[in-house]
């Protein structure tokens, strides 16, 4: 558990972190080396809160803002217990320091839809402790008992004497006090901020051009680099001729780094023209013949043999052999790029004695370590500044820190600050995709149409194998990120076997919003629908019965069915489909209403979504994440895929790597269940049910079961 330190008493203020004086309060993780080194804290502002003598409350956010609203939710947690005046609360990104490590993962990072539950306790405790110290400072000044004082909107109030003091006026005296050993947190019924739809703190600057993303960082004397990378994954540079590139006006340097050839120029456009003019010869390596069709055949061949066992209840093979009726189906999903709106980029300024990096990242600890290694510096001399992220979705949580390393290596080579910018084509063709996935399913029903057997073989790459995460995520030969959502099937099927084959590597893959659930939910919730229809059962009733004691699944399923009008009459040419899926600690059901045009064009008119994520911090943030997840899931369901021919990615930009546009966006209604159950995340879990809900509706409407994503209009042409 964290110990609480009053950093303002440790020379912290003199270090310039808070020139105006005031209370700085933070947590230090017990047992870290830094805990014994007070001096180090001077340069590592180990704090989540500053209150200036002007009364301004600054919350220091250790998690990155990538659209999920955490720059508002984290301050809400702290401000609730602090009884701050919300109008005076602002937020700033934390530097990199062990004090800011994830409470569950032990590194500084944002991901896995974990921020809110992982900081729920720590941020509230920080606010409550600060409040107690402010009260103590006021009570001492007034010579009254602290217990006779109350707090409200940034003031300590002593009703009996009518005295009140602002937090700003108390910041200095409070900074001289010891933090209380323990504080009492509010009873949730007394919350005034938590649970309310507080407006986001970051919205105003996102409407006037002032918000600064990584790509917007500009330094004096900075150059811009565009990098030529191998056209085939795993390829290596054989030789290059930079004569034509260096002749482009504005091009200052051409530098070879381990990931390719960087053209460094006064600005992006000159750098890009310079890159276009490079003469490059590559050794394309073993993936030069990679082809989507033949890769699919290889996956199918793997799936024909038994894999590593992820779950085994009863005897699926025997139950299938004895079933009254069996079904077999194959579900396939392509590689997917995250396609964040802000292409990858990073700014690095490598000097002899230190280095600064500005980057929109989800992985501060690893990025800083990699930057230090690339620069040849002690990590203590590397400052990593987290900017806003123009979308993350997992793409900015990279295990090899490649986009940071590129900037550091180029800056080191040219001895100037450098911003590396990826073009959209670099981004679409740059890898780190959601793995392609192949699911071979078999199901068995008894005479009554109840399922007695389920066998699922999954083939996909592992992006965890061979990384430092291997020991945490791969257990008994099973990569948890490959089978999640399948090996935890909530349905009461007595004979259940889930197996996994690791597909050959080479194509860089990564977590993509909802990770393994992004493909397992499509296979599982579609095939379950097949079993329901095969047994002549209503898909809702079928699920509810099989869910048994899984109350949270059932609760959201019933809520979405109700708002989505399940079982009610629907207009001609339309049908509904549903799906329910739990991921990242939250439970979500969706009912999709679709129609299909003459040409097979799929139109999703409405998605009714119900979520149980436990206690709610900001209901409007949850709604926004559910709306966004529907759009993200529909992009994958209707449009996006990365395919290969001759080792090369066929897609280039948004014209052929298509994503959802506004005219295709359905109405989304969101029911947030009032729940006191355990807290889950909201960034990712809205994505998995989208594709199966839509696919199930298409089947309901057309009788055609589409088992590959993206759904193809030609299969539905009438």
């Amino acid at each position: 558990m964290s110990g609480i330190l009053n950093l303002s008493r440790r020379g912290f203020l003199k270090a310039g972190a808070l020139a105006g004086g005031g209370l700085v309060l933070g947590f230090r993780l017990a047992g870290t080396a830094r805990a014994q080194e007070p001096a180090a804290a001077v340069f590592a502002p180990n704090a989540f809160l500053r209150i200036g003598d002007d009364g301004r409350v600054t919350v220091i956010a250790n998690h990155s803002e990538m659209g999920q609203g955490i720059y508002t939710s984290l301050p809400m947690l702290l401000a609730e217990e602090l009884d701050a005046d919300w109008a005076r609360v602002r937020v700033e990104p934390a530097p990199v320091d062990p004090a800011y490590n994830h409470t569950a993962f032990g590194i500084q990072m944002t991901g896995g839809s974990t921020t809110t539950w992982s900081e729920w306790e720590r941020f509230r405790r920080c606010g409550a402790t600060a409040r107690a110290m402010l009260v103590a400072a006021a009570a001492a000044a007034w010579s009254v008992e602290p217990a006779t004082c109350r707090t409200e909107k940034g003031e300590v109030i002593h009703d009996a004497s009518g005295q009140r003091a602002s937090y700003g006026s108390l910041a200095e005296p409070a900074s001289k006090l010891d933090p209380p050993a323990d504080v009492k947190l509010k009873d949730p019924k007394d919350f005034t901020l938590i649970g309310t739809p507080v407006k986001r703190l970051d919205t105003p600057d996102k409407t006037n051009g002032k918000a600064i993303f990584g790509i917007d960082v500009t330094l004096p004397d900075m150059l811009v680099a565009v990098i030529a990378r191998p056209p085939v994954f795993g390829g290596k540079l054989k030789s290059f001729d930079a004569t034509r590139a260096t002749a482009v006006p504005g091009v200052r340097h051409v530098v070879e780094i381990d990931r390719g050839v960087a053209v460094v120029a006064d600005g992006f456009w000159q750098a890009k023209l310079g890159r276009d003019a490079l003469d490059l010869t590559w050794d394309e390596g073993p993936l030069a013949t990679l082809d989507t069709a033949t890769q699919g055949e290889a996956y199918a061949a793997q799936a024909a043999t038994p894999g590593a066992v992820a779950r085994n209840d009863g005897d699926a093979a025997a139950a299938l052999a004895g079933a009254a009726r069996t079904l077999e189906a194959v579900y396939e999903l392509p590689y997917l790029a995250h396609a964040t709106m802000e292409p990858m980029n990073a700014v690095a300024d490598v000097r002899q004695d230190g280095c600064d990096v500005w980057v929109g990242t989800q992985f501060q600890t690893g990025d800083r370590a990699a930057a230090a290694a690339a620069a040849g510096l002690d990590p203590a001399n590397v400052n990593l500044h987290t900017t806003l992220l123009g979308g993350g979705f997992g793409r900015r949580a990279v295990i090899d820190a490649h986009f940071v390393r590129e900037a550091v290596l180029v800056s080191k080579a040219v001895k100037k600050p450098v911003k590396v910018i990826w073009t959209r084509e670099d981004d679409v063709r740059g890898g780190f995709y959601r793995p392609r996935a192949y699911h071979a399913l078999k199901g068995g029903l008894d005479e009554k149409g109840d399922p007695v057997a389920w066998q699922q073989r999954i083939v996909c790459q592992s992006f965890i194998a061979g990384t430092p995460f291997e020991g945490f995520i791969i257990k008994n030969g099973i990569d948890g990120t490959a089978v999640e959502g399948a090996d935890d099937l909530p349905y009461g099927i007595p004979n259940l076997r889930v197996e996994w084959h690791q597909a050959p590597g080479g194509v860089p893959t990564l977590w993509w919003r909802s990770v393994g659930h992004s493909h397992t939910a499509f296979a599982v919730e579609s095939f379950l629908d097949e079993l329901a229809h095969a047994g002549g059962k209503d898909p809702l009733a079928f699920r509810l019965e099989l869910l048994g004691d899984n109350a949270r699944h059932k609760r959201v399923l019933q809520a979405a069915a109700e708002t989505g009008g399940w079982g009610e009459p629907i207009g001609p040419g339309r049908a509904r489909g549903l799906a329910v899926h739990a991921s990242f600690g939250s439970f979500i059901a969706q009912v999709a209403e679709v129609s299909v045009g003459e040409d097979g064009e799929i139109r999703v008119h409405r998605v009714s979504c119900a979520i149980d994520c436990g206690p709610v911090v900001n209901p409007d943030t949850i709604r926004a994440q559910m709306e966004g997840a529907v759009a993200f899931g529909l992009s994958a369901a209707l449009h996006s895929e990365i395919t290969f021919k001759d080792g090369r990615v066929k897609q280039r930009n948004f014209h052929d790597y298509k994503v959802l546009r506004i005219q295709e966006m359905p109405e989304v209604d969101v029911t947030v269940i009032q729940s006191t159950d355990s807290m889950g995340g909201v960034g990712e879990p809205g994505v998995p049910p989208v594709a199966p809900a839509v696919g199930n509706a298409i089947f309901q409407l057309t009788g055609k079961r589409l088992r590959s994503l993206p759904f193809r209009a030609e299969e539905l042409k009438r």
Partner: protein
Amino acid sequence: MTKLRVNGKDVTLDVSPDTPLLWVVRETLGLTGTKFGCGMAQCGACLVHLDGEAVRSCVTPLSRAEGRSVTTIEGLEPSLADPLRQAWILEDVPQCGYCQSGQIMAAAILLKENGKPDDGDIDDAMAGNICRCGTYPRIRRAIHMAAELKAGGK
């Protein structure tokens, strides 16, 4: 030398005239509110106004702006910017926010030409602007609200 007007100020630039306006605005003039998203007029993140019309600055050479007036998100006139920003804040539209400058600049053109757009008008006007976070339902609502605010403010 290229002369043009940017957000009401005359500027003279010594930049290659084939440079896309996007990079001139962002790098030469330091107006980073206009974003790079695709470089081929697919996503709308770079949308600016050229003599009051929407253009994709990533494919608009500087030469096309010679002698003309460019407006970026930083210089959008208050009669459009105020209701749009107010509505964007009240509906809490942005998530990551990266595409929102382009969204607002596209919405501004719509509102200038159509005081009371319906959902179909909005979809038509905004179809060129991608948002990966999926803020589309809020963009629709905010444009309706901005239209009302603008009408009320007259």
